[in-house]
């Protein structure tokens, strides 16, 4: 159906048709153009921007202008406009958001409450959450603003609009980062309330390399993570803007969030928790994979109705060739009932399984295309279960210490090749040995770990062997977070999540000790043996050699 022809209004001065101008307001283009012609009026002194806006300062921040004098606008959203600005005291670039508080913002109480809430939200520190430097009020005008780290990248929304939907692996990797951030925030009692593609900044991984890595580690890290780093922006801002005066109230005033990405409980103005963010993340991932949102509508009511119908257009995901496991996961994230959605930990577990499926599929394809005769089809992916250790207080400094105790959880062979199971033990033993060399880190014994191996609710990590003979692992521990991001064959790198530094690099020249085992189907017992392999060969070469010579590490089955 064709849209109805709009009503025509004309200019009372020149008779031309009025047209849509700034902010959808109608105006006469001819008259507005004519106003610019000189001769009618000379340009006075107060027509320059500084005279117009005052000194252009918000606290210590001054908004940048482009070469041609227009304001350096970075983005615009429902809560305000973001500009690039300069911190005049530290001489660094920041992203400055000027908050639109509307009529309510005239109230001092509202402004102070906003600042209180926003400052608390800013205390959430995580590598996947943009750091907030300052919240403040411009005294002259009563405007609220906040400065956060300037992230040189693009939003997920912009990426999808520019380059089309993302592939499955990239989407999962982004989801894992966001989930880790949500989990960290949840532990401090904070939720985002407006998670959407426009609030996720993507930075090329090379640009976001942490300091302290040498060239080799940098190169390996880049090869391993040729996908963007995600950073959530505006954390807690939506909640702060709508915070109730009475902190005991569970509901918030007015609608929170962006309709297309809002959870059912946001529409119903109910109490919100992290599962609301999980729902929004589900819609966000759907958008990343398909370029569309699952529930379309021209108004809040239409979107809400579509959501309540509970009919997900799964065909969109199938068309985008989204693997079945991820489809199921998205379906669970978009459950109407918050209780039916996975929590952050369960979500992290599921995402790792999805990653294993996605990367497994990709590895198989590569191997088949390359050398079907020599290279085994097995793409060994291992998931290891980690344990919660005792809680470690969150670090406040820039260089937090490693946790006092840590664990190396069990690895599980997720490949279809039972013969690859020995790698699970091999990687486990290798990590265990290397972490034990760190002076300040106490490793819980393997025996103590075993009792948790069948627990479903503990966080998981992923170790994946790919054709580059590298493995990666990630592990989340209680209140503090330790990532074992890359367990290469000859090195282990550990780091804390709250800051890129310090990195502890462990003896890169040591070739790991490989283990092999023999399983007994009758008793289910596992016996392990150790074998040192040639120092000068990589694991992959050894595997290829082993399989090609039909002696895959002498693994025997009974």
């Amino acid at each position, binding site marked *: 159906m064709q849209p109805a022809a709009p009503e025509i209004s004309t200019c009372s001065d020149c008779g*031309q048709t009025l047209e849509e101008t700034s902010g959808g307001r109608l105006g006469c283009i*001819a008259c507005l153009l004519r106003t610019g012609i000189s001769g009618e009026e000379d*340009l*006075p002194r*107060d027509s320059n921007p500084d005279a*117009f*806006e005052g000194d252009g300062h918000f606290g210590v921040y001054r908004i940048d202008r482009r070469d041609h004098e227009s304001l350096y*606008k970075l983005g615009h959203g429902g809560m305000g406009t973001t500009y690039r600005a300069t911190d005049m005291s530290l001489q660094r670039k920041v992203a400055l958001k000027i908050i639109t508080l509307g009529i309510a913002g005239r109230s001092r109480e509202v402004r102070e409450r906003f600042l209180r809430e926003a400052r608390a939200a800013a205390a959430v520190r995580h590598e996947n959450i943009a750091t907030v430097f300052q919240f403040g009020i411009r005294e002259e005008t009563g405007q609220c603003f906040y400065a956060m780290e300037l992230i040189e990248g693009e939003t997920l929304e912009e990426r999808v609009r520019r380059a089309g939907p993302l592939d499955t692996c990239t989407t999962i990797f982004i989801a894992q980062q966001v989930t880790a951030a949500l989990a960290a925030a949840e532990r401090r009692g904070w939720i985002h309330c407006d998670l959407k593609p426009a609030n996720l900044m993507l930075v090329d991984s090379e640009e976001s390399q942490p300091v302290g890595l040498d060239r080799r580690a940098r190169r390996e890290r880049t090869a391993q993570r040729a996908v963007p780093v995600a950073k959530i922006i505006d954390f807690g801002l939506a909640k702060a803007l709508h915070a109730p005066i009475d902190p005991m109230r569970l509901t918030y005033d007015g609608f929170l969030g962006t309709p297309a990405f809002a959870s059912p409980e946001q529409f119903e103005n109910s109490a919100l928790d992290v599962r609301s963010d999980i729902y929004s993340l589900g819609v966000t991932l759907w958008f990343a994979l398909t370029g569309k949102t699952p529930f379309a509508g021209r108004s809040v009511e239409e979107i809400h109705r579509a959501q309540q119908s509970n009919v997900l257009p799964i065909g969109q995901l199938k068309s985008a060739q989204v693997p079945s496991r991820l489809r199921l996961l998205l379906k669970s994230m978009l459950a109407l009932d918050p209780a039916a959605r996975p929590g952050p930990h369960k979500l992290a577990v599921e995402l790792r399984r999805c990653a294993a499926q996605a990367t497994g599929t990709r590895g198989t394809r590569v191997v088949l295309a390359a050398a079907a005769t020599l290279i085994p089809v097995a793409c060994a992916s291992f998931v290891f279960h980690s344990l919660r250790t005792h809680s470690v207080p969150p670090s406040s400094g820039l260089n937090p210490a490693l946790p006092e105790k840590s664990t190396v959880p069990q690895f599980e062979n997720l490949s279809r090749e039972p013969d690859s199971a020995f790698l699970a033990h091999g990687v486990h033993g290798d990590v265990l040995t290397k972490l034990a060399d760190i002076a300040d880190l106490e490793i819980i014994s393997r025996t103590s770990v075993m009792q948790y191996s069948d627990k479903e609710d503990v966080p998981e990590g992923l170790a994946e062997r790919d054709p580059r003979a590298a493995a990666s692992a990630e592990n989340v521990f209680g209140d503090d977070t330790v990532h074992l991001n890359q367990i290469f064959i000859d090195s282990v790198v550990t780091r804390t999540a709250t800051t890129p530094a310090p990195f502890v690099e462990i003896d890169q020249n040591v070739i790991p000790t490989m283990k092999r085992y023999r399983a007994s189907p009758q008793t289910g017992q596992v016996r392990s043996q150790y074998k040192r392999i040639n120092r000068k060969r990589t694991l992959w070469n050894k595997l290829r050699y082993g399989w090609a010579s039909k002696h895959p590490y002498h693994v025997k089955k009974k």
Partner: protein
Amino acid sequence: MPCREAESRNELFVSTRWTMVLKAGDSATTSVQALSALSELCQIYWRPLYVFLRKKEYRHEDAQDLTQSFFAHLIETRGYARADRKKGRFRAFLLAALKNFIADARDREHALKRGGGMILGRLDDMAEAQITQRAAKWQADEAYDHEWAASLVRQALDRLEQECVLAGKSELFDYIMPYLAVPEESAIPYAEMARPSHRDITILRHELARLRRRYRAILREEVRGTVREAAEVDEELRYLCHALAAGYPRKNT
């Protein structure tokens, strides 16, 4: 006229978006600033190209894709290096380049390429209907000029609004904006505006005058960004005013 003098003095040093692009065309390599300037120009002025293509009977989606492809092509092939230095105005250059591009695309069945590193806006159904209705009486070139003028005005008003927001005067902008171009003071209902805006008539009068002056400065800056010499600003504005009027002139750069 101190301010006119100041404007002329500044012109000696001014490097506008279009002159940056022209300079980039002269050198072997294109600077990041020049590409950024070209990108900004394309972001502002994609609608006139889109309208032109719609008038050329391209379907909605095709016109959108073709506009994106054109920008990608312009940047990749450094098409801006062929702009006429002497009488080059960005408006005329862009239209000529687009005409060449679509002729080539037809001849060689040019593959459409999305993006070109740029995200262009999208028109909703209502805006599309308005454009179709408005452009019905014009030829493609006329529709292009009309939309160009509209894009200039929109850009200037957007900037003015942003500055008002920063100055904490966004509500005032809402009240005053409809009267920015009204020449007759008697036609402006100050008394009606005074109560809801919580301001005296005298202050409103003063604010409107300031806002109008700032708007004018911004509009001239925007036009300046599309022409080579400062002296061409008035000429360009007059040309566009005539283009909008009934007696559409046939002379152009």
